[in-house]
């Protein structure tokens, strides 16, 4: 609901219902499509594939190299056919941040649905021109000497951040690492959770 549409909901709902009934009548929308799609996405959403890829990269250097240089091959090892992903690695010298200023492009196959803040005009406007100040507002202080690379998703290529491994997780299995790897850390607006934090 738009901030400035005080009564938008009823109006929007009635337009959606009307369009839905027309598309059902014409056979464009199968009768069960809405329910099935909603059910499917509500039960199967989030950054599972992305987190799995990162956990594996943290524990397996050759997988990490593949993920960074040929993500299609790396993701297919996880059972995902996806040829549009570029994975960018955070280091002590470089922090990466993903945005789409022109619309809201986002790597759905690996991260699930984009959160509303990612699609907001404020994020889209500010991430490119004042990333460090924005990240600080969001609770992530990136040292001034560390370069922030902002990836503005202007093509069909999609971006995911490979965050730095938290301290104290040496010897953790992929399964123990997984809960530390939040969606926000894969966009670049947060770091993974600390070892004891999940």
């Amino acid at each position, binding site marked *: 609901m738009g901030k400035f549409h005080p009564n938008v909901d009823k109006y929007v709902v009635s337009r959606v219902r009307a369009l*839905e009934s027309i*598309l059902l009548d014409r056979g464009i929308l199968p*009768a069960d499509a809405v329910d*099935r799609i909603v059910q499917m996405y*509500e039960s199967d959403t989030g950054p599972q594939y992305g987190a799995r890829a990162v956990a594996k990269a943290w524990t397996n250097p050759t997988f990490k190299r593949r993920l960074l240089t040929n993500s299609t091959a790396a993701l297919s090892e996880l059972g995902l056919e996806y040829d549009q992903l570029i994975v960018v690695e955070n280091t002590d010298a470089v922090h990466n941040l993903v945005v789409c200023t022109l*619309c809201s492009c986002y790597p759905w196959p690996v991260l699930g649905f984009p959160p509303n803040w990612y699609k907001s005009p404020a994020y889209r406007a500010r991430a490119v021109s004042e990333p460090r100040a924005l990240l600080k507002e969001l609770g992530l202080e990136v040292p001034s000497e560390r370069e922030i690379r902002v990836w503005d998703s202007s093509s*069909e*290529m999609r971006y995911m951040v490979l965050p730095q491994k938290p301290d104290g997780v040496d010897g953790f299995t992929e399964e123990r690492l997984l809960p530390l790897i939040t969606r*926000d850390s894969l966009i670049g607006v947060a770091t993974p959770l600390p070892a004891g934090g999940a």
Partner: protein
Amino acid sequence: MDGIHDLGGMQGFGPVIREQNEPVFHAEWEGAVFAMMRAARARKIFNSDEMRHAIERMDPAEYLASSYYERWLAALTRLLAEKGVVTEAETGARPANRARRRAPAAGESQAVVLDRYSTAQSSFRSSNAAPAFAVGQTVVTSNERKPGHTRLPRYARGKRGVIAAQRGTHVFPDASAHGLGDAPQPLYSVRFEAAELWGTGDVDTAAPVYLDLWESYLATVAGPGGDRG
């Protein structure tokens, strides 16, 4: 087009608010819009570039006042009308409460409930043409102001950058959004220094922006850093 959607660098939007435990859909109608968009795309009624351009063509005030799925609804309604599938008069005239979902027939929605990603959607195209620009080369972006869809943001118009990577050959949105086919072109990742984009004021110089740009957006610059020094 230099539309309201081209938000990069704009000031005055205030803080970014993150919702805790955000649901996938905030209301039932959002799920319905999502499903209808999926169905229309699966039926190849329009492509993703046409969809983006339909959103860009919204009235600017309505664009900013709308939520994400309200924009999808506006684009969907507009494209269905423009493609002659459902006229805007029909949508308006239809009683609001007529949508009654029939009992689903098993497997009926298979064509519509797509996998999360299908390689049929890939933007890659095969090509024999060698890319014109090499990694490390300085380029300058086009200053052309197009009336239609384009993926060169306004903040990076007429700016110098360095080729950071070659990305293969891809469908060209400026053509694809206007029924002009795939018209594939080499795509590049281009790095722009913050001072080039945002000028000489209070700028965080350690915050470059990387954009994926098609070959026809780019031109060579004389000398390694170009004649601007």
